């Protein structure tokens, strides 16, 4: 039932007294505000207020213990002369640009496998989903460090398969970031569940018709499945993009908070944390946070803007 229908049904009872209808509407409005008041207070006190404060702090020198000192755009200027900052930008961009597409592809692949009416589907679905529930937790990051340790399980398996001299997954600057990307890809569960829900909604007749016309598996995927899933691809892409830019826990735990070896896993947020809470450069950290917010907004905006060219909605089909 649409909202319009509901309103039509509601009006007859409200009709007899028109003036009371007005006050009732106002009363409803007040009640509405009262109901959202707790949320509103939270949003202002815990989100908007601190955000405004952090914007202001980004123009100050602030060591947390003495009063902030206004220094204009100096923090922003300093950032671009800070080679560790630039390194953290590079590390984060590589992490986002590699881990997000890989993760989505993997999620889609698994969702399609699970959608084939497997026996014990629920079990598999739960098993695959669990990592993404635990994924950003400290425990998993510690587990990851142990798995990829020099005498960890991964090296033992590889050596059993005949690869006796595998790279140092976590302590070689050339591989450490890749190991964290694998960790991110392994947390494919939540996009997978969303894809699975989307696959369930694609009408079977489409495939039947395609088969009657002689279309093979690949054409079916590219002409039916993928186009109809694009809204969900967009949704997952946006969420994963935002999440990856803010990744913190895996790098913090795996590198012992250093972003090491030699800054090879110095994620943006990790450097932000080091500057803010390690060096007490709160203003500098606030400036970093705002640049990150703007960059995420640009990326997200770009994805939304481009979506009109590649996202297909069923209700627009002609």
């Amino acid at each position, binding site marked *: 039932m649409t909202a319009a229908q509901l309103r039509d049904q509601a009006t007859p009872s409200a009709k007899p007294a028109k003036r009371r209808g007005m006050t009732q509407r106002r009363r409803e409005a007040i009640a509405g505000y009262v109901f959202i008041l707790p949320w509103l207070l939270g949003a202002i006190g815990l989100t908007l207020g601190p955000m405004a404060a952090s914007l202001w702090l980004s123009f100050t020198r602030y060591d947390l213990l003495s009063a902030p000192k206004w220094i204009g755009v100096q923090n922003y200027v300093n950032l671009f002369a800070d080679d560790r900052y630039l390194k953290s930008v590079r590390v984060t961009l590589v992490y986002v640009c590699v881990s997000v597409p890989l993760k989505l592809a993997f999620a889609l692949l698994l969702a399609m496998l699970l959608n084939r009416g497997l026996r014990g589907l629920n079990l598999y679905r739960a098993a695959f989903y669990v990592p993404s529930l635990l994924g950003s937790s400290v425990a998993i990051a510690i587990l990851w460090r142990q798995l990829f340790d020099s005498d960890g399980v991964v090296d033992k398996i590889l050596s059993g398969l005949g690869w006796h001299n595998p790279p140092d997954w976590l302590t070689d600057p050339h591989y450490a970031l890749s190991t964290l990307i694998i960790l991110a890809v392994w947390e494919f569960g939540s996009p997978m569940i969303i894809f699975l829900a989307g696959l369930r909604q694609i009408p079977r007749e489409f495939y039947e018709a395609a088969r009657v016309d002689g279309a093979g598996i690949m054409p079916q995927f590219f002409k039916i499945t993928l186009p109809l899933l694009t809204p969900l691809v967009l949704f997952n892409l946006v*969420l994963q993009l935002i999440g990856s830019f803010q990744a913190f826990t895996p790098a913090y735990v795996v590198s012992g908070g250093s972003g090491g070896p030699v800054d090879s896993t110095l994620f943006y947020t990790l450097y932000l944390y080091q500057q803010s809470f390690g060096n007490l450069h709160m203003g500098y950290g606030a400036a970093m946070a705002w640049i990150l*917010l703007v960059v995420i907004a640009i990326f997200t905006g770009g994805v939304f803007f481009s979506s009109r060219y590649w996202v297909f909605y069923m209700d627009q089909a002609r």
Partner: protein
Amino acid sequence: MLSRRDFLRTGAAASAAAAAIPILDACSGVAGGSGGGSAVKLQLAWWGGNDRAKRTQQVVSLFEKKHKKVTFANQFSAWDGYWQKLDTEAAGGGLPDILQMDMGYIGQYTKRDQLFDMSKYQGKTISLDDFDKSQLQQGTVDGKLYGVSLGGNIAATLYNQTMIEKAGMTPPAPTTTWEQFASYLSKLSKKLPHGVYAADDTSGEIPEFETWVRQSGKELWTSDGKIAFTENDVREWLQYWADLRKSGLIITGSMAAAEAQDGTNQGTVLVKGKAVFTSTWSNFLGQYQILMKDKVGMMRNPLGGKQAGDYVKASQLWSTSAKTEQSSDIAQFIDFFIHDPAAVKILGLERGVPGSAKTRALIKPTLKPYDAAQIDFFDNNSGKTRPKTVLDPAGSGPIGDAMTRAAQSIPLSGKSVASAAAKFMEDAQKALSS
């Protein structure tokens, strides 16, 4: 399927929320303030491992039993993250009443007036007459008592004595120089089982570098908190280790990185049996020994230059928050911690060698052999060391991280010693100037 409008609306809202909230919200610390009235609640914070937590908690409950009106709320964490947490709590006005202080931080904390001057309790509630002078002096800044040392330690060289004996050698002489140490390692290395290195790589550790620099009569910092070492000092230091590395005498860069990432005692190459020598604070002797079957021995760091480079450091101190209203209860607790016979027996040498002579005499008969060895080491060597009088400046913490990065960049990123040293100097200057 979703309609376009619904989708865009939920999508945009979800993404805005997801983007904004976690990053821009500040996280708050543990709430402060102890309740009034006759009941006193004290917050106690320290860093350290499980063994320390166990011992400290036992002493705390002992104190609570004897002082019914006092209860404690304990918070402890690993060294990593401890100062970040304290600073955040301090900003919220809730620094714990009693906090474990480090010599690297006492300078900046007193400069910001965050600590309570305990001078008025000195010699009264807190009796310090029989206290080791050098330890007492370290907790005293500008003539005021800001911290009471919980134990002294010295940067030292620890080794796996069993492995040395199995290799048919004896531990190095106490007067070993850096050069002699290198040739000793090269002899030892030939007799070690495959996969065991002669020494840990401690080139990225500031306390070891400090020993090296002080041996030429200098200090790391000037009294007004500037850098007192030169780029050449750094280059020579890193070169010494690069030469050892080239000869395969110390662990690989990758192993050193793993050690740094792990950060626990269990993760060190000495405890894992992958290297024979390492260098760290002397109170780690017992901490490592309880994790190992092999016997651990200890000697002074190699000598060099004209002067002693090592010094007796207060390994940890109890400091009091400037804002506390319970200073007299706290003073009682601190005195209890360093003098009560039952308490000091529980604590042993886990935090280093106690400053109080009475306490040392009291616990000596009860000690395990490795702890007795620590006291002997202390008695034999503390007179040979050279006291450190300058305080570490704010920013010395990040400089330690920069040293680790510089040291790692040589084996792991193929940097030259000269460029790693130059980079370190640049980072160090930056950490102090801002």
